[in-house]
């Protein structure tokens, strides 16, 4: 009875939601203006500081108004952190603060939603139904239940989430356009909108889960089975996977061998998804993995997936082969141009752009594949270096933003998320299988 008490009332109607959006925009305008005035009277080093202060202020204003809008915004924040690596640090800090504040669905609401979606009260539909959620996921929460001796996980979505996506995104877009310095971020916003719209659609998630279950065919990876007759657009029932969370797994002090085993499974499953299923599990949240008995790995939450087409994959592979084989900058640059990440033009210009904006990044990414094995215990600063490089590039390159291929970014950001997990696991991974997939050998 404690968590709901301080909860602010969420504006419900479109009008009032719009009013909040408008208010946020007004505030941003003011803050930025102040920064500009201050800057006019400042020395160079002070200017840098002031800029970062303004950024932090703006970030706070935006996140504050997101807090009022709640719900969907938390997920948007995650998506943006995932999809827009050029964002200033202050921004990401504010965003990550808001991660854990999805509005709770209380017992009365659970009852109502289940009745509305599945036709009867939980007590009549399930043999047992635990009113207390055991996890939060995809803009809702997950409850344990049993039916016909099967252990189930029932995911329930907060009502009205899907209708508020558009107005929530317009705030974010406005805020982001300030950082993109007038450049085009539409394609990235489109990507985020698409991901989110998909994520709130549990029917789609059910399909994705089923697709993974039917096609992954890995003897050590378990995908939950969807119970179709107990699933709708906003309620998703599947078999419950019993095991340790990432944190519990680490706390259990697993041997090096076991840690390597799981990191390897996660790493390989990513590339199997990418190359064989042409669909990756694009949410590298450690909570999406269950460390089960008998060395099995459970993968859950297919709300955020990324489909790739063969053509992109071909370009992506070719690029990685070039990078792995230490090809010349010219060859690599041409391939980036092919992927639309470098503007076509004079080679000299293209090279300069590549070397300043992209090369520092791909040097880091390709480090993993330089040898057969990569030890994340030794290189436990990998994701940090990756992140800092992204920041450096962003600082120096004003026009890097608009040419980032969204597919490419999603894949790299997801991998970076996985690598961050491997660092915490202090695991060593064997990259040979992934390399052979990239080279098209298996």
């Amino acid at each position, binding site marked *: 009875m404690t968590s709901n008490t301080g909860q602010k*009332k969420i504006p419900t109607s479109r009008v009032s939601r719009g009013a909040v959006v408008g208010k946020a925009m007004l505030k941003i305008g003011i803050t930025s203006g102040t920064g500009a005035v201050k800057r006019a009277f400042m020395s160079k080093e002070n200017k840098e500081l002031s800029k970062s202060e303004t950024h932090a202020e703006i970030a706070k204003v935006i996140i504050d108004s997101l807090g009022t809008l709640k719900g969907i915004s938390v997920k948007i924040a995650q998506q943006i952190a995932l999809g827009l690596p050029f964002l200033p640090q202050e921004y990401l800090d504010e965003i990550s603060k808001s991660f854990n504040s999805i509005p709770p669905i209380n017992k009365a609401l659970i009852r109502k939603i289940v009745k*509305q979606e599945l036709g009867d009260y939980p*007590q009549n539909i399930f043999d047992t139904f635990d009113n207390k959620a055991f996890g939060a996921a995809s803009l809702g929460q997950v409850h344990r239940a049993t039916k016909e001796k099967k252990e189930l996980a029932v995911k329930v979505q907060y009502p009205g989430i899907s209708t508020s996506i558009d107005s929530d995104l317009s705030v974010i877009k406005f805020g982001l356009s300030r950082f993109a310095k007038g450049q085009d971020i539409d394609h990235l916003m489109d990507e985020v909108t698409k991901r989110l719209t998909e994520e709130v659609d549990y029917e789609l998630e059910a399909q994705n889960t089923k697709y993974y279950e039917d096609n992954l065919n890995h003897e050590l990876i378990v995908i939950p089975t969807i119970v179709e007759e107990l699933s709708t657009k906003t309620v998703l029932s599947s078999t419950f996977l019993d095991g340790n969370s990432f944190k519990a797994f680490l706390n259990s002090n697993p041997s090096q061998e076991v840690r390597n085993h799981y990191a390897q499974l996660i790493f390989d499953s990513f590339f199997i998804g990418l190359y064989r299923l042409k669909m990756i599990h694009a949410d590298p949240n450690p909570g999406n993995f269950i460390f089960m008995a008998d060395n099995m790995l459970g993968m859950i939450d297919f709300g955020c997936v990324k489909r790739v087409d063969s053509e992109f994959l071909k370009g992506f592979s070719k690029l990685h082969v070039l990078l792995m084989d230490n090809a010349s900058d010219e060859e690599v640059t041409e391939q980036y141009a092919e992927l639309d990440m470098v503007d076509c033009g004079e080679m000299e210009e293209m090279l300069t752009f590549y070397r300043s904006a992209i090369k520092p990044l791909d040097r880091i990414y390709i480090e993993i594949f330089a040898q057969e094995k990569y030890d994340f215990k030794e290189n436990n600063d990998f994701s940090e270096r990756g992140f800092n490089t992204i920041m450096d590039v962003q600082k120096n390159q004003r026009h890097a933003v608009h040419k980032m291929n969204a597919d490419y970014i999603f894949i790299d950001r997801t991998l970076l998320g996985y690598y961050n997990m491997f660092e915490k696991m202090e695991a060593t991974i064997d990259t040979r299988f992934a390399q052979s997939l990239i080279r098209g050998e298996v």
Partner: protein
Amino acid sequence: MKVTQSAKEKTKAKILEEAVNLIIEKGFKSASMREIAKNAGISNPTIYNYFPTKEKILYAYVEQKHKETAQILQEIEDFNTYTLREQLQTLIETELELYLEDREFIMQISDMVFQSGGLKLNALYDSNTLFRDMVADILSIAIEAEEIPNPPFEEHLPRLFWDYYIMVVAYWVKDDSEMFENTTQFIDHSLGVIEALLQSSILNRANDLGMFLFKTHFLSALERFSVKKSGFTKIKRKFGEVFNDK
């Protein structure tokens, strides 16, 4: 002819059902008692044994829904583990859920209450005893369990809650969002506010302030300015009723 109690209940239910159907079809004004009786398969005079006026049918309908709600709430095994807010929310959501199949009928009543003035909201209070009793129970249990501090005017809270509930129904009637999800959110958040109010000591503090102002300023002001003594005592008695209830 001797009519047993259960047969009587059955007939009453039948009349209610047919009345709702006919009113949805024809509107409250145009639906005649004669036709309702005919549809329910009873004679025209007999219907007046059950419902002397058409309005009484409305009240009986509302009462019936309260009964069904009470029944459903009783069937929730772990209802005692619900928080105060969850219990109140379940109460309201269940009522609305029962209204759903007769939504058009509710819309008509709502129109009569809020638009045309054809129905006095006060009249409906007579039919809400059960609702108020349920709320009173839920509240007193929460107070006893020390979930909330003892609120001032505890006896009046169920009635206030009924007023809130009427507001929810009025909102629901106008709600055109998908699956009435706006109403769901409205209920969720407004009950959050009510819960916060009941849990805090704001009500008590406001009451203290009110009492202070009343005793120190209002009473003496009244005494000074009041010319008609009888009028004054009348007012005093009226306020006294409220305040003594505490």
